């Protein structure tokens, strides 16, 4: 197996995640896309861990999973709050910062 096959898979998933974050209107979908990006990074970490024969890659991936869980929790709470206040979670409808 090549190192690059995992890295390229990660890169593709990351790019797809970026597209999802930027293009999707639904707040929950944006959060899902962020998960996709985080997972792409995890794949890279584990692959590099194998390449360099260290356990740190897996440990870091573990930490990222924990951080991602925290992020989803807070993110969904924010989305819920938005929904409660504005009856909508379409992220392009929130433009209070418009200049």
């Amino acid at each position, binding site marked *: 197996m090549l190192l690059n096959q995992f890295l390229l898979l990660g890169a593709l998933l990351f790019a797809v995640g970026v597209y999802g974050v*930027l293009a999707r209107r639904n707040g929950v979908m*944006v959060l899902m896309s962020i998960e996709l990006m985080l997972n792409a990074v995890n794949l890279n970490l584990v692959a590099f861990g194998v390449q360099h024969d260290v356990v740190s890659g897996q440990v870091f991936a573990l930490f990222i999973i924990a951080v991602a869980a925290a992020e989803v929790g807070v993110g969904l709470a924010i989305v819920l709050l938005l929904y409660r206040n504005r009856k909508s979670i379409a*992220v392009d409808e*929130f*433009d209070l910062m*418009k*200049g």
Partner: protein
Amino acid sequence: MWILENAFLIPLIPAVSFVVILLFGRKYIGVERVQKVGIAAVGIVWVLSMIAAVAWITRVEDSTASKSGDAEHAQIAVNEGLSASGSSTLDGDLHLAAEDDGHGDANSKDGSYGYATTEPVISKVDGWWSSGGIDFAVGTLVDGQTVLLLIVVTSISLLVHIYSAEYVKGDRRFVHYYAFLSLFTASMLFFVMAQNLVQMIVGWELVGVCSFVLIGHWWEERPNTDAAVKAFLTNRVGDIGLLVGVIILFGTFKTFDIDSINRMVGEMGSEVHFAMLMASIALMAAVCSKSGQFPLHTWLPDAMAGPTPVSALIHAATMVVAGVFMIGRLYPVFFEGFSIGTSSINLMAFIGGFTALIGAGLAFAQWDIKKVLAYSTVSQLGYMVMALGVGAWTAAMFHLFTHAFFKACLFLGAGSVSHAAHHTFDMREMGGLRKYMPHTYKTFVISTLALAGIFPFAGFWSKDEILLGAFAGQQSAYPLMLIFGCVVALMTAAYMTRVIWYTFWGEYRGHGHPHESPKVMTVPLWILAVMAVVAGAFNLPTPVLEVFGLESLAHLVQTYAEPTHYLNAIGLSHPDPSLWLALVGLALALAGMAIAFMYFWRNTGPHGLTERNRYAKAGYTFIEQKYYLDHLYTDIVIGSIKKPIARAANWFNDNVIDLVVNRAGEGARDGGRWVYRRIDQGTIDTTVNALGSGADAGGQGLRVMQTGRVQNYGSLLFGTAAVVAIVFVIVL
């Protein structure tokens, strides 16, 4: 022996009790029953401590019996033993140094008694955690000193737990109170059996936190919170010293292991003198804050704002001795650092002696009975530090032991008095209480006699040993310390007699009807009073016991508590007891009592001198204002930092900046006029206008990008990232 190797159970039990009381106290156990949980936990721990004491004594006996042979042979064995155990404690996952029993050492140095060394019991787990390539171990170090403190802490704590059940009954934070009493006991026990310096710091800080919480127990009143904050901040000052000291020790020896550090100091001696001096000075700051030594003692009297049993437990018998204990634990470090025994004065001895003196002086001018006792504690702690400073390790620990009992008794007695006399601590509102509270009165008098150092009460024996230590010294005597000690002995007897007079004699000056406290309070008082009488028997000098043919019971503290495995290496000697010095000490104490007796009971002496004589009044005010130390800290030190800077800034503002601004303003105005006429109207105006409209147009254009939509900003972010990445990857 099992208990010595599993000593971690001892702090664990009250820690569990803390969690149980805090989490389940109010809801499941019930407010009226939480004290039982606390008392049960501390009771179990007390039993375990007693078992540990027996186990330790057996261990010492075994090593003495098996190894006290040929001196020369033993000396070699010790050297081998040192290097072997020194290296073996540094590796291995979980191992007990206990398997290797003590090595005999008939110490050949002059004047020492030549006890066999007994190795401490070390149980530890290496690799608790690691950071930056340093492994931190966790474990327990049990030796005679630890066992001594275990007995003191658990005994006092148990009695305070029982006493508090009545004293704080019906308090609005009863559950909280018991939870923190348990946590305090746990942290102090954790502290005394710390195996390495990091654990020691943890225990030290935990003790400080508990003290903070319990001083501020009634935080609704402002002075109490102030006192708690003051105690905490003053302790923080010393904690910095502790951190610095530990860092120096780690830098020198590359280990946090207390056992290894003590051994290495003994081996390296003067090679590491300078580092040890620096470490000792830094650690001394920590001792000053925790054990209330001059000049950081000011928090201790204020800490009397907490409930009285807390004062007895924390600010008299256990927490404040943490500093003394720490010196004792790292004694080789201090011994080398301050060159104890080679000169007639050193920093530790001086600080201790001076503190003893000023603490005793302050105790005369207090009207609050607890503050008198607090200053007395400061003074007695000074005594202990002084004893350590002159090389009398055993005397200091012995005094710590006896002092804990009679001081706890005095504090609890004061609490009992206040309980009876409408929660006042002001002695001017007491008087004549001996008729109403016979038990409190008797126990208080017994403890006072012990504190004053009257034969044959406990304080006499320990105080005498300290004076002896100062008199005989190690290689040279400490005449100044001896003078300090004698003067303090006189003063202690006098001010304690004053307390007795104001509290228990004369006419009752308060309101209402005082009454004796219930049994649950008087029984602990009596137990402590009995200890105040008999605690002295634990380290009687040999000549006294020879009279009764009980030589084998002499110097129990010295035999069993002294960490000979460290102290023999630095060559500590024990002076021979001196009869006439004991008589001098006793005479001074009796003289102090007699002076006070004449002054108060017989009404002789210069009454009203402070009103008539200007100098006497000035002196009294000086003491009453606590030598102006609080003023020094709050007004002068803080003020001199705060005010001059503010004033300097103000001056700078008024003079320099204003001047510059004014001149600049004038210059700018003159220049402006000229520019306005010649340049502005002519050329610039048009340019500026053009720029303005240009910026406006540009802004309007850029405004389109500020959509307020997060995803558009995200697109810009990722797009920019992509562009930068392209530049880096492809172009560069």
